[in-house]
């Protein structure tokens, strides 16, 4: 996943984890996420977060602080959530939430840093095939939506920054509604154009 500039959120890199199949890694990620939700002790979750940090660093290149600065909103969100829990439920519970989120984040980053998006899409498609046979979902379309999500996160971030800068240049302060309305309008227009491009580039065989 590339949320911004460079390697920390970018595409798959060669590492010991890149030799594992995408399906295996996604399955382990799901199992680990479930386990982290079930654990309620800050010490164990803290150790899990540390372990996952180690795994992620072992499969990724040097830390790119410039890329991290562009996703500062993630740190803000985590801080708000943890503060809220700390205020209402105490420090122990706040630490549980913080370490759980960090463990999940590092685990997800490790998978993303070691797996090409097309491989993840193929794994998602294979996992959904039984549901596809029953006619509940179209696995290829769900996999495409999964891939598109990864592709569009940085595009949406850039769009958000463009709108913010355009408004700042006109002296408009950063009010949520002033950002959300143009963001929504541009996102809908972009979705239309993207759908048109997919229509032009692929045919039905790509969705079977």
């Amino acid at each position, binding site marked *: *996943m*590339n*949320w*911004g*500039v*460079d390697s920390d959120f*970018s*595409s*798959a890199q060669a590492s010991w984890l890149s030799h594992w199949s995408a399906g295996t890694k996604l399955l382990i990620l799901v199992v680990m996420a479930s386990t982290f939700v079930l654990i309620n002790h800050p010490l164990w979750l803290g150790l899990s977060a540390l372990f996952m940090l180690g795994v992620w660093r072992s499969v990724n290149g040097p830390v790119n602080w410039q890329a991290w600065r562009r996703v500062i909103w993630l740190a803000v969100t985590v801080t708000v959530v943890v503060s809220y829990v700390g205020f209402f439920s105490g420090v122990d519970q706040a630490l549980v939430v913080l370490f759980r989120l960090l463990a999940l984040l590092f685990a997800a980053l490790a998978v993303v840093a070691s797996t*090409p*998006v*097309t491989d993840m899409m193929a794994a998602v498609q294979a996992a959904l095939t039984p549901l596809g046979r029953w006619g509940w979902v179209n696995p290829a379309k769900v996999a*495409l939506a999964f*891939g*598109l999500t*990864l*592709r569009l996160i*940085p*595009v949406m971030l850039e769009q958000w920054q463009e709108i913010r800068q355009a408004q700042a240049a006109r002296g408009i302060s950063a009010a949520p509604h002033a950002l959300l309305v143009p963001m929504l309008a541009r996102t809908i227009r*972009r979705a239309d*154009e*993207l759908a*048109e*491009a*997919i*229509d*032009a*580039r*692929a*045919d*039905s*065989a*790509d969705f079977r």
Partner: protein
Amino acid sequence: MLIEFEDVTLERSGRTVLKDLNLSLLEHRIGIIGVNGAGKSSLARLINGLLTPTAGQVRVDGLDVQLQLTAVRQQVAFVFQNPDNQIVFPVVDEDMAFGLKAILPDKAARQARIESVLESLEMADLAKRPIQQLSGGQKQLVSLAGALCREPKLLVLDEPTAQLDLRYRNRLLQILADLPQQALVLTHDLAMLSEFDRVLVVDRGHVVHDATPAVAIAWYERRCQA
């Protein structure tokens, strides 16, 4: 490849965008110019069925676009103005593979095609690059490479130089000049049409002038000054 418009009318949101259009396009390089909102993009989108005419018929190489859409789209590739809205996947070669499955079911053959197209455009070093690390010019070339992967007979390019600096504009023009495919280009960049075979001027849903580049561009410039 012959592109034919027969009595084509297109209405969108109650507005007539194209009216009674009759055209036969066979030339190797065709340019379409006109002011914003004249109907250029709509005309181009009829060629590969992104829009459906309200009346009339569009044929590409004898194929009815409405009735034989899949066959038409295998022959016609579209390059959009904004590459960020055309590129679907986060890495160059992954994006180029999109849409190839139907044409090349074998994964190794798909990869070979991708490598061959990237090499032909002197972009082999970009194969594993994340899209977000590319400049606007590189993204536009990746869009073009994705289109060429399908080995279309006709390329439709919607304002391909609109977001390019001079260096990438010149590079794109050189690539276009060397391509064996027929190309139909919608543009405001009049200079890029100088070596084309035919230029159409579209205005308010009609082709109001149809001539060689020098004649059509001079006519269009006079009209814009009037």
